[in-house]
């Protein structure tokens, strides 16, 4: 009989398909693991609804649970209860080390252009806050493109959701 702890430990090894330096658990998108006898129900929230990695994540989770000898059910939760604030401290450091600046904290109100142009964004390479917004959009829905004025390097910024 599998325990919830064993499931968490096993799925903790699954990397994010698009940002493999960080695991799904570190990304904070695994919302719940419930074990009932041989059945394991995992709740997952996509970072962005159009995330093309969703099906890959679902299959990885199912396969991992099956390897533990249990029967998986992966439910996708579509609500606003997940935020990039849920990325773990270890996960944030792994993002930064990979050159992907971790997201700013979710503000109380709606994000504004002034906030995106503020000094709250730190270059993941040199640590400078002298950075500017190049493009709200980037190579995946969850990223923006910024430019570091100090080390003259473009970098990717995880969007705050």
């Amino acid at each position, binding site marked *: 009989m599998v325990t919830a702890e064993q499931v968490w430990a096993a799925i903790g090894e699954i990397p994010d398909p698009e940002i493999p330096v960080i695991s799904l658990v570190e990304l904070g998108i695994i919302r719940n693991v419930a074990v009932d006898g041989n059945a394991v129900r995992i709740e997952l929230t996509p970072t*962005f609804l*159009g995330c093309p990695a969703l099906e890959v994540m679902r299959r990885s989770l199912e396969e991992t649970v099956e390897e533990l000898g249990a029967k998986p059910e992966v439910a996708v939760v579509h609500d606003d209860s997940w935020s990039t604030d849920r990325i773990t401290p270890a996960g944030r450091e792994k993002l930064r080390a990979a050159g992907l600046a971790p997201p700013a904290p979710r503000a109380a109100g709606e994000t504004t252009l002034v906030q995106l142009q503020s000094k709250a964004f730190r270059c993941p390479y040199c640590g400078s806050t002298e950075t500017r917004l190049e493009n709200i*959009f980037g190579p995946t829905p969850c990223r923006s493109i910024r430019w570091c004025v100090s080390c003259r390097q473009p970098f990717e910024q995880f969007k705050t959701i």
Partner: protein
Amino acid sequence: MSGVGSTEPQAEDAGVDGGFRDSSARAQLLLTLADDELILGWRDSEWTGIAPTLEEDVAFSSIAQNEIGHARALYELAASELGTDADALAFDREPGEYACAPLVELRLLDDWALTIARRFLYEQADRVRIAALTASSDGEVAGLAAKIDREEVYHRLHAELWAERLAGEPRFAAAVDELWPYALGVLEPEHRDELARLVGRELVPAHERGVHTDALELLWLEMTEVRRSIPGAQW
């Protein structure tokens, strides 16, 4: 949203036997939103590879991906009620069964001013109805609307940046004038005052939802080609 979850007179029509037109008010609302997002996502994706700058190429591709992602989540919610799946709702209906607003159907490729005017007007209209939905007593609808709105924030910032940049440009002003009646048609009449206030314009007769533009047919032919060739195909 008071009718959501109601088992009042329309309950008999809630089944799928009579097709999508007989679906409940809730499913119809979800399909209307999903169809708008799918068709606009498709239109925005037409700029992939040919937008005026590389930044806009990336922006339009990403926005299109988000809008189609919203459509998928909305279709899934409707599909669970209608006993079908998201792909069937997106690709297996006849053009006349789509509930999208004329604004999103227009083929604006080759006119950047109109394209930006549509993005700006659509996002403002969408903000009004999404805000109303996040207050819904239907937890699934309210939760999904709030999640969608988190992403739409970035679309609005993009559109507002452009609107600011193009303010005072006659060609952009003419484009907004031209699309304004279409933008009003995205919303139910009770929400139009708020849209007019948001964009600082007067109410005019709206280009209403319900009669499709000629542009939809061609888009539909392209969009559904795979599923019409191989029923049930997934890719």
